């Protein structure tokens, strides 16, 4: 038996492995943006805008590749060696997880304005056209005949925002306290028939599969669903919700190795620029830039927003209390299992 073909194959595999050399000035740069699910459409357009901006500014061509998935899966991939130049994830906790392995400097959240979150969003309700179940606020979700769709907080960043928004609402009620919030969220979770692993999975379940009466979703995702379904669904904005701040940062070890720090940092800076902020608004995220925000103030429903730092003492604490194995989510979700 001739083994030469095997040697040849191994060579081919080796050659394909490639090595990411540092791009020199003037050569086209290539960035990889590792992001979470509902940002696909936004970054697709933003990447093109940034390429034009960067060409005019520095004369260098830049192409940005995208990788999307559940925030946890994406952070895990970066930890395992997916060489993203920038990460734009759903919550700071996931970037902290990457930082804890040394890939990102510990003080990353202070590097860019507004806690490194160039755009914000909030959690709203998406209901069927005409709002047949008459859902107006969080309290209505507990009505007997209402089924609620939300992803699994263990794996989806969006779902954690949903969960904390519900918890925060209950705390916010007259006589609201921890046990009451716990009771409210427990009852809410008992009404969830499908717990997808990511925000996109839940939106598909609700919109495309026609399951459930109300979807807890990112505001931007809800608007997108309305566009995609030709208004078969509509948005209900609750009285109070959480200020979701999806953070961004460069992955220090990767950009230093690939020599892409300058362009990667410019990429993130551009998110804060008026042009970037206009695109943010176009894709239904809430802008940070005061002028852009004023210009489009009517596009976003007025809702009382609380922050995670204010109510839950930051992501590390919230994660440990609520979502870690054996945390409150595990405790209150288990009793409802086994019933249909």
């Amino acid at each position, binding site marked *: *038996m001739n*083994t030469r073909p*095997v040697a040849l194959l191994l060579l081919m595999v080796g050659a394909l492995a490639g090595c990411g050399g540092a791009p020199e000035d003037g050569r086209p740069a290539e960035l990889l943006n590792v992001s979470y699910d509902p940002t696909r459409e936004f970054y697709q357009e933003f990447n093109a805008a940034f390429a034009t901006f960067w060409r005019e500014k520095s004369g260098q061509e830049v192409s940005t590749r995208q990788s999307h998935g*559940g925030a*946890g*899966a994406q*952070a*895990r991939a970066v*930890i395992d060696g997916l060489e993203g130049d920038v990460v734009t994830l759903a919550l700071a906790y996931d970037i902290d*997880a990457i930082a804890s392995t040394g890939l990102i400097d510990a003080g990353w959240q202070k590097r860019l304005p507004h806690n490194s979150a160039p755009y914000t969003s909030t959690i709203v309700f998406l209901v069927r056209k005409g709002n047949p179940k008459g859902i107006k606020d969080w309290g209505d979700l507990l009505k007997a005949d209402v089924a609620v769709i939300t992803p*699994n907080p*263990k*794996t989806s960043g969006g779902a954690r925002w949903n969960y904390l928004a519900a918890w925060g609402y209950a705390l916010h009620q007259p006589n609201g306290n921890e046990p009451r919030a716990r009771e409210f969220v427990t009852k809410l979770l008992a009404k969830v*028939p*499908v*717990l*997808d*692993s990511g925000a996109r*999975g839940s939106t598909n*379940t609700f919109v*495309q*599969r*026609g*399951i459930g009466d109300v979807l807890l979703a990112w505001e931007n995702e809800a608007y997108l669903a309305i566009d995609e379904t030709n208004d078969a669904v509509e948005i209900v904005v609750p009285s109070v919700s959480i200020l979701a701040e999806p953070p961004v940062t460069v992955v220090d070890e990767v950009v230093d190795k690939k020599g892409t720090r300058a362009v990667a940092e410019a990429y993130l800076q551009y998110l804060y620029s008026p042009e970037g902020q206009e695109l943010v608004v176009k894709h239904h995220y809430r802008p940070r830039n005061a002028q852009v925000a004023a210009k489009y103030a009517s596009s976003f429903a007025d809702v009382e927003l609380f922050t995670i730092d204010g109510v839950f003492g930051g992501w590390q604490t919230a994660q440990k209390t609520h979502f870690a*194995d054996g945390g409150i989510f595990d405790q209150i*979700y*288990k009793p409802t*299992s*086994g019933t*249909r």
Partner: protein
Amino acid sequence: MLTASRKRSGVLPGFGLTLGFTLLYLSLLVLIPLAGLPIRSTSMGWEAFWQTVSDPRVTSSYRLTMTTSFLAACINGLFGLIVAWVLVRYRFPGRRFVDAAIDLPFALPTAVAGITLTTLYAPNGWLGRPLAKLGIPVVFTPSGITIALIFIGSPFVIRTLQPVIQDLDVELEEAATSLGAGRWQVIRRVILPYLFPAWLTGVALAFARAIGEYGSVVFIAGNMPMRTEITPLLIVTKLEQYDYAGATAVALVLLVMSFALLLMINLLQGWTERRIAH
């Protein structure tokens, strides 16, 4: 340990080279990577390991994986037997075409199967709508998982049985018939016992495939912890929570189950071959 006694082939060359290459390739690509699982698991200690693999959420995923796989294998066992019998023994228009199509679930990528079945059985799908009217939800329930597993496992029983039904000695049937046995008696006393080892092999193959299945199930399952979360999905979920040790521990349990089944299948195949040979 591996030395050729070369009973059949004193002069044939290449024993050392081909055996060496086979073992090397198998070790590099399968055995060493798989060995990583137990090695990684030992680093977490017995207690932590046991706690992970006996967690209620994990055990309910084993239960779900096992029951849906078993149910799917049984349904495939019943219909596979009928289909194989009909395809070998009866003549009808389009038989050859149908025969060629049996392998479709094997050739079709599991992701395609997943999105297609989900679309079909969703409450607004072709098959889901009438079922929903009858009050039977399919998608995002264990029955949805079972349907996906029936789909991917269906070729195994049929393809294992077909050659054995073909080999069935017609004289045996004739003898039984001439001794006064009715058709049903012949089937029950002669044919079914003869087919049994092959049938069991096919069912076991379908079962083994179903236990590890991911691509087609993940779309239709709904991923509810404790309810519709299959074990392979739980491994992925644990990975997404940065729980490498947990993922590895659960994977090891699944691997041991698959390996036990594989050993059983190989023994069964030996039995089948002896049945046919004599």
